[in-house]
């Protein structure tokens, strides 16, 4: 600093002034704080001008935002020159460049009319803020202190400017910020508003949606169908109540319908295919398939799925509706079935059925029709059927049909239809229209019925009338017809001849008065009246016999049959009469001879029968009924006879039938019949076969009840066996045999045991124990034997002989009867010769019979080997000259050795192989006890003869025992 020392007091004043100015300058910021930069500059300029007594002060503020700088200039009024601000600005603008580096510290510019010293001052380090130019006309401008002042001021200004700028910036920013905030707030408010509106709208929309959903749910739940909604991808999202109820599954389960049993397995592939196709292509699907109900039953549903698209055409949802068509399906099936059935019926009913259109052209013919007329459906349709109608009837039929159509009335007509084989038959065509609800005929139905028979019958009736008359006239029987009042309406020629009246005489007269004998007239009238009153007909339909009277008054028997004529109106009656006078006489004869026969049969206890084998017809006489104890006159069949035949003899009946079948000429049988009361009858039957007029085989036979003789035979047989038993019991031979048999057992035991005992003792070493045992057994057997004999003796003790009168003939006959079968078996030919006047003997009948039996048996045995001659056995009873009764038995057997005769009667002597030789000795002793004798002798011819004789019974005496 150049201090000029001229005036130190001035210097101090200057310095003081400078310091004051500095202080002022330093205080400037306080003035311009918070102000705008332009204010800062303005203040500064003002301060500087004042402080430094500048001529002008110029300031240029650069605009931080790049706009044109702000220029300010303040000019001192006191200036010598008149400096115009504009000029200053312009000059400085040009003179002071923007680049501060180019600035000198001071320079002079010409301005106005002189030069001006300026001092630019940087505002900011690099004049980024601007520049201040101080200008003064003083040449010494700027002094040191002025420079200093200016610099400080510039600095301050810079600072202030910066501050101001900052402030301004801040302000600006803040303003901007505020603006922005306000903007933002406004924007936000707007957005908020917008948002709120949106929200409100959305809420409304949601409400609406919920409401819609609710209502749709209500709808869904109330529509009678199973509904669900699927997403665009096919996932089921919504289920209505019904669908859940139907399937009985949870929504989750239903979502997996493709893999569960919800759809019937048979339908599932088809359903999945359709579904997938729809999902892919977006086209709706409509399929019928079965769904599984909650209870496991599958039902048919029609399932329709429709897509819902948004405005852009994209599918947002699928709605699926399942409609239960199960009933429909069943109905369809049953409809099909009933259609088939109907078809069957239509073609099966035994009538010709057809249908036609309203215009009369035929549409349909059932099977029968077509088969009958032999036309095909093609040929018969429309009007083709007329070809089968008889040409004569065609016009009538077609006309009738057209009339029915025209008047729209059901009707019928008759006409002949040609059968497939060409034959024409009468048919009744019947038609019936089918009307719709409005009453219009939409179709005609008809049937054609065969009335040919009736038509012919109608023709017949006429012809039969004519025939009837012919019959009446030609009949041999009298045919008389009366009406319900009993008046004669018909009297045929035969009646005329029989009764002797003319037809005209009797017509209209009461029958009773004409042909009924006076005595019977009342009854006849009553009978007719009763019938008319009660319907009770005693005389109808039966063959009656009554007495009739001729015109001449003579009565005669007639056979009569009455029938009622069934026609409309009151009844009339026809009587067929026949004069049976001759027949009656013949009947009487027959009756008489039959009575004789019946009597004869009764006496003989013999019934007769005839048997037509082929027809099985059997006729019996009354006696035969009596024998069999059947109701006389009842039906006789082989079976019925069989019911009486004794069960053990049914084979006989079978054999008889067999013989009859083989048509043998004769047969003869004996069999038993068993009566209901269990009694038995013996029947002897003889029959002879012959041929009747027609060549049919007929047996005529007789049956005799031989029960009595059989029974007595049986009694005899029984007596014989009794006798045989007695014989066995009493004869010595039996006794011996019994003894032998019984005693020989223990005897044999004794012998055997003893033998054994000896052997045992003889053994080496001796079997003492065994021997002892055998000895014991021996003793036991011995005891047994003695016991036996004791018993036998008790059993067979001799009994007292009885003493009675015995007719030897009768006794012999009995013995013969008892032995007959055996004798017959041995082919013995018996020749009994009984004396008539044989006296009675006294004695034991049974014993005597025993002897006779013995002799018979011997004689039979003697002939048992004889084959070359007949085995004659003669038994003879005779009265000896001395009065003795002799019985002789002679055989034709092997004979006897006369030498051995005596020996025969020895006990135990026998020539027979199996004989014991007891019989003759016992016999002899019996006879001797009867005071008689028994002997035998060989015959002259073959065989021997044995006889015994006993004295006859003495009156009043008994033979000594």
């Amino acid at each position, binding site marked *: 600093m150049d201090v000029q020392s001229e005036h130190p007091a001035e210097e101090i004043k200057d310095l003081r002034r400078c310091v004051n100015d500095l202080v002022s300058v330093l205080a400037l910021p306080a003035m311009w704080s918070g102000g705008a930069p332009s204010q800062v500059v303005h203040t500064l300029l003002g301060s500087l001008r004042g402080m430094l007594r500048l001529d002008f002060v110029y300031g240029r503020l650069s605009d931080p935002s790049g706009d044109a700088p702000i220029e300010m200039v303040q000019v001192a009024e006191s200036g010598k020159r008149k400096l115009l601000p504009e000029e200053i600005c312009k000059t400085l603008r040009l003179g002071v460049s923007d680049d501060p580096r180019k600035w000198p510290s001071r320079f002079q510019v010409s301005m106005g009319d002189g030069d001006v010293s300026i001092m630019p001052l940087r505002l900011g380090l690099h004049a980024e803020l601007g520049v201040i130019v101080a200008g003064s006309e003083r040449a010494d401008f700027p002094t040191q202190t002025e420079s200093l002042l200016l610099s400080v001021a510039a600095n301050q200004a810079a600072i202030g400017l910066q501050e101001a700028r900052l402030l301004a910036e801040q302000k600006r920013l803040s303003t901007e910020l505020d603006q922005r905030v306000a903007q933002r707030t406004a924007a936000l408010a707007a957005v908020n508003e917008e948002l709120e509106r949106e929200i409100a709208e959305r809420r409304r929309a949601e409400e609406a949606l919920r409401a819609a959903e609710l209502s749709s749910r209500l709808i869904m739940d109330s529509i009678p169908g199973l509904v669900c909604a699927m997403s665009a991808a096919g996932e089921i999202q919504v289920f209505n109540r019904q669908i859940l109820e139907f399937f009985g599954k949870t929504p989750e389960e239903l979502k997996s319908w493709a893999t569960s049993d919800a759809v019937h397995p048979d339908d599932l592939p088809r359903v999945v295919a359709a579904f997938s196709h729809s999902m892919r292509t977006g086209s709706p699907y409509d399929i019928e398939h079965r769904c599984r109900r909650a209870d496991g039953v599958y039902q048919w549903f029609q399932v329709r799925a429709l897509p819902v698209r948004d405005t852009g055409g994209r599918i947002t949802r699928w709605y699926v509706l399942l409609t239960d068509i199960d009933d429909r399906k069943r109905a369809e099936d049953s409809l099909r079935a009933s259609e088939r059935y109907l078809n069957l019926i239509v073609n099966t009913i035994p009538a010709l059925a057809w249908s036609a259109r309203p215009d009369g052209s035929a549409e349909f013919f059932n099977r029968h029709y077509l088969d009958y007329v032999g036309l095909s459906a093609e040929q018969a349709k429309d009007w083709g059927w007329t070809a089968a109608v008889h040409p004569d009837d065609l016009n009538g039929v077609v006309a009738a049909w057209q009339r029915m159509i025209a008047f729209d009335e059901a009707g019928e007509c008759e006409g002949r239809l040609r059968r497939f084989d060409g034959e024409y038959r009468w048919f009744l065509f019947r038609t019936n229209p089918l009307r719709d609800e409005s009453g219009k005929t939409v179709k005609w139905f008809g049937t054609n019925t065969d009335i040919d028979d009736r038509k012919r019958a109608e023709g017949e009736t006429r012809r039969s009338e004519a025939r009837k008359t012919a019959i009446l006239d030609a009949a041999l029987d009298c045919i008389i017809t009366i009406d319900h009042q009993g008046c004669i309406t018909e009297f045929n020629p035969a009646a005329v001849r029989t009764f002797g009246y003319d037809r005209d005489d009797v017509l209209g007269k009461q029958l009773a008065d004409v042909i009924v004998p006076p005595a019977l007239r009342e009854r006849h009238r009553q009978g007719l009246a009763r019938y008319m009153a009660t319907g009770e007909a005693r005389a109808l339909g039966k063959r009656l016999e009554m007495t009739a009277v001729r015109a001449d008054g003579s009565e005669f028997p007639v056979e009569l049959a009455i029938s009622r004529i069934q026609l409309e109106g009151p009844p009339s009656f026809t009587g067929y009469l026949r004069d049976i006078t001759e027949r009656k006489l013949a009947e009487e004869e027959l009756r008489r001879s039959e009575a004789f026969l019946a009597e004869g049969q009764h006496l003989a206890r013999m019934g007769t029968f005839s048997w037509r084998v082929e027809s099985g017809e059997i006729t019996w006489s009354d006696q035969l009924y009596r024998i069999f104890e059947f109701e006389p006159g009842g039906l006789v069949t082989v079976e019925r006879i069989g019911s009486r035949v004794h069960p053990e003899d049914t084979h006989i009946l079978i054999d008889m039938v067999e013989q009859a079948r083989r048509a043998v000429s004769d047969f003869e049988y004996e069999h038993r019949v068993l009566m209901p009361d269990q009694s038995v009858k013996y029947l002897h039957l003889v029959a002879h076969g012959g041929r009747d007029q027609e060549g049919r085989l007929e047996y005529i036979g007789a049956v005799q009840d031989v029960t009595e003789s059989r029974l007595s035979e049986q009694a005899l047989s029984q007596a014989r066996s009794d006798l045989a038993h007695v014989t066995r019991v009493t004869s010595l031979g039996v006794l011996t045999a019994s003894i032998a048999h019984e005693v020989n057992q223990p005897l044999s035991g004794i012998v*055997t045991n003893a033998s054994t005992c000896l052997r045992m003792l003889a053994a080496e070493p001796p079997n003492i124990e065994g021997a002892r045992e055998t000895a014991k057994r021996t003793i036991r057997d011995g005891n047994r034997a003695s016991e036996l004999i004791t018993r036998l003796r008790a059993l067979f003790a001799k009994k007292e002989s009885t003493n009675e009168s015995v007719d030897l003939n009768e006794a012999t006959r009995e013995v013969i009867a008892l032995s007959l079968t055996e004798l017959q078996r041995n082919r013995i030919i018996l020749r009994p010769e009984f004396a008539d006047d044989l006296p009675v003997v006294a004695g034991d009948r049974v014993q005597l019979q025993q002897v006779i039996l013995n002799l018979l048996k011997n004689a039979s045995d003697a002939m048992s080997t004889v084959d070359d001659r007949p085995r004659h056995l003669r038994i003879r009873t005779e009265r000896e000259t001395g009065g003795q009764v002799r019985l002789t038995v002679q055989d034709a057997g092997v004979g006897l050795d006369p030498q051995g005769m005596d020996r025969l009667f020895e006990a135990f002597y026998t020539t027979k192989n199996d004989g014991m030789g007891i019989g003759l000795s016992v016999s002899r002793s019996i006879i001797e006890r009867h005071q008689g004798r028994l002997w035998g002798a060989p015959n002259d011819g073959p065989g021997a003869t044995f006889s015994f004789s006993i004295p006859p019974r003495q009156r009043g005496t008994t033979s000594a025992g």
Partner: protein
Amino acid sequence: MMIKRALVSVVDDDESIRESLPDLLREFGFRTRAFSSAEEFLASDCVDQTRCLILDIAMPGMTGPDLQRELKLRRRQIPIVFITANREEAVRPRALEQGAVACLFKPFSDTALLEALHLALRVN
């Protein structure tokens, strides 16, 4: 020539016989079995082994000759020695006719029996 240990069966309804005969037969050296009826014999297991049959004629039920017939029907060729207590039986000759070896009357001696057995076994 005696065949030892041959089986001889005895069929008789009488107890004395059934008691005494077997011991004697054993003394003879035979094996023996006794039966009280023809039915019992047939039902037994001895039918095939029996080398000789000592058979009573008169028995209740199936008689001796009946058994003889039955065995014939069955083609059993067993030699039969009939024994009978009843000498007047007419069946004796018939029994012999039908092929029995012998017919002994009770009581019979041991020698008679032995002879019959020899005959029977020789026949076999």
